[in-house]
């Protein structure tokens, strides 16, 4: 990171804006975002499957 970039970051911090990210940091953030999306999706599937497993045959036992 060059001195100019650091100055930019400080100025952005003073202005309340986010610090400038390097391409590597952007790549890592993208990876984290995708991982969080995948985990949330799997949690939805897990909770759905757990609910069906808990209810068992009773899942169909309801007034129509």
């Amino acid at each position, binding site marked *: 990171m060059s001195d100019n970039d650091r100055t930019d970051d400080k100025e952005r911090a003073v202005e309340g804006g986010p610090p400038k990210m390097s391409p590597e940091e952007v790549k890592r953030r993208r990876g*984290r975002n995708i*991982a969080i999306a995948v985990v949330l999706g799997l949690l939805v599937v897990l909770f759905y499957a757990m609910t069906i497993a808990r209810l068992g045959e009773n899942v169909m036992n309801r007034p129509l």
Partner: protein
Amino acid sequence: MAMISDRLAETGRREAAGAAQVSVSGSVGDYIALLKPRVMSLVVFTALVGMVIAPGHVNPVLAFASLLAIAIGAGASGCLNMWWDADIDAVMTRTAKRPIPAGRIAPGEALAFGMTLSVGSVLVLGLASNWFAAAFLAFTIFFYAVVYTMWLKRATPQNIVIGGAAGAFPPMIGEAAVTGHVSLDGLVLFAIIFLWTPPHFWALALVKAGDYARAGVPMMPNVAGADATRRQIMLYTVLLAPAGLAPVVLGFGGAIYATVAGVTGLGMLALAWRVLRRREGEAAIKAAQQLFAFSILYLFLLFATLLAEQSLGFGSLFAGWGR
């Protein structure tokens, strides 16, 4: 409590300093490393055996969810351990490249990650199995993160003996997830891992004594000396070898398990004896390394054989005993 609030304040100061200078952002791999995947795999394995030996049936989906929750709970406690121990990890060659000391993940991020996973894993286990198992998992996370990591590890050479209980609880949690209680069978699996821990870690500590001394961790070789450690390794191995055969007596270990536990138990005794006898130079280091490596194989073989026997429905030598 003062110690914990000091560390939280320090984490806050580092966060503030980090935010002012550069954004700390680890990769997905760094966050996975925080969970200590190798320890997690051992926990999954031993908890699975605890579930398989438990009498009764559990829905496969709920069994999978329970196992996942136990694994994530173990990972969460590993993450909290890394948050607390970042200072000593930084000075030990074995751990210096971990995400926090290497500066890839901020301490506060690791703390938040560990706490979130702890709460999440306990809730999922409660919903998937029962609240006794969930409470047991919560206690295990507390025991590892607070009792072992924050208290015992830097206070006493008995750190890994008492702290080893945290690593030995997973089979009992697995059994509790299926039955809602803990039986003598689960307690025996606990005892095997509990007695296995000192020879395993002290063999490593004999080789890495310099590392632990630099970090100020009072491991047995640094406090009582290498010879006293060798004697204690022998003592625990003498207790471990017969404990490894206890599943046969209780009826959930069959003929194959009896053979495997007997032969590998003798192997552990032979290697511990070699550690006791070879006290100088390269031979001493090699003996400790061999015991460390074999101890991993020993535990793996014992639990893998139990799993195979139970899964394939092999008969027990003393079926019905102790039940």
